[in-house]
């Protein structure tokens, strides 16, 4: 529906103008990478072993920043009411926000990947599209639940602190499945080896695109 694109474009336009989410997520992701390298001094074998995990940890932790911003920007001037006053179903607001958050986070992830090549010698080019696909699938699920929870978190007294508390436990399947898939892909395993993990990611995405869109109206209601 056109309203979804209107909302999506509005958020993207805001991000293009301020670049707040993108820059903070990218910087934070970099910091995580660097700190991990300092903390663990990985040998080449260790690097290979921790790359899939570190990839997802970086994405999930820095992703929180963008998700928080998604609804904190609606708090200034209570701009969210502009959308609530419109003759549109609340789930459309969800999909619009979800779409924008997904694009912004995915672009940030793409920009972070070269640093994995740099610091961890991650063999990006061999299985580039496969890895990209898995990252996209995992990000979809994470951003979907994250959009729902961000709407709630920014309304609470604990504000942004609430989001990671709510989101990380729920994201466990994404983390486990995402790491397993990336690890198997980098190790050159055939699709059949990690097909079950792949299905889990897809199942998570489907369930957690539908359910949050249905309950989203309760998350932004007064």
């Amino acid at each position, binding site marked *: 529906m056109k309203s979804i694109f209107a909302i999506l474009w509005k958020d993207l336009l805001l991000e293009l103008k301020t670049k707040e989410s993108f820059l903070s997520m990218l910087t934070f992701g970099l910091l995580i990478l660097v700190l991990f390298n300092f903390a663990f001094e990985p040998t080449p074998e260790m690097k290979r072993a921790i790359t899939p995990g570190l990839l997802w940890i970086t994405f999930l932790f820095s992703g929180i920043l963008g998700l928080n911003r998604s609804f904190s920007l609606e708090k200034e001037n209570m701009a969210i009411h502009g959308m609530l006053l419109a003759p549109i179903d609340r789930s459309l607001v969800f999909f619009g926000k979800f779409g924008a958050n997904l694009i912004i986070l995915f672009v940030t992830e793409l920009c972070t990947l070269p640093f994995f090549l740099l610091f961890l010698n991650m063999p990006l080019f061999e299985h580039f599209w496969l890895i990209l696909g898995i990252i996209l699938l995992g990000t979809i699920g994470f951003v979907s*639940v994250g959009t*729902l929870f961000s709407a*709630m978190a920014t*309304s*609470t*007294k*604990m504000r942004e602190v*609430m989001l990671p*508390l*709510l989101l*990380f*436990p*729920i994201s*466990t*399947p994404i983390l*486990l*499945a995402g790491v*397993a898939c990336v690890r198997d892909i980098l190790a050159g395993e055939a699709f059949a080896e990690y097909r*079950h*993990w792949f299905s*889990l990611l897809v*199942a*998570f995405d489907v*369930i*957690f695109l539908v*359910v*949050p869109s249905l*309950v989203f109206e*309760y*998350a932004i*209601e*007064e």
Partner: protein
Amino acid sequence: MKSKYEQVFSQDNIATKLLGYALLFAMFFSFLLIAWYAPTERTMGFVQKIFYYHVPSAWNAFLAFGVVFVCSILYLTSRDRKWDILAASSVEIGVIFSLIVLITGPIWAKPVWGVWWSWEPRLTTTLILFLIYVAYLLLRYFSGQGQRTANFSAVLGIVGFLVVPLVYTSVNWWSPEAQVHPQRIGMGPNMQVAFFVSLFTFTLLYVYLLIRRVRVAYADAAVEDLRQQND
């Protein structure tokens, strides 16, 4: 003028008292069964008997969170506050039983396998559940009363429960220690009796605690209503 909450609260319910006494008796009886009737397990020794508390606690936690799921849906569709009160009470009880699972697990594991913690699927899933519902309680107590809090709690109650099968599946596939931890204990007839009595007792305990907790919540609501009226 008595609010509807006060009316419910002030009913001195004979049924609940009877339940309380029955429960007391059942727990004592169950303890006797566990301590003496059930045999000591061959390989693990006496500490295995913690299983009779560990597993029913896990069942209670799961039951509690299932109740939260149903009540959350009912609340969002009806807007009747009683479902929200029921859900919140059930979460508290569920968190307590989850904690019991997480404590009895290591107590059992250390003497038997030498490590305090193992990333065994069911234990790990319980840990994740514990974290989700602790976040539920944090959300609730830092948001204050009101419809918004109830709405948010209900949303979390629904999403949190729906993710459980996915969490369990993913942890199960991932778990490096799924093989080490016993998935199924072959139970002799005596053990079965002790186990199912314990399971029944624990379920009774859940119901009793829930009733008591809901009563207290209703009392709180009645106090709030009175306070508003006198403003």
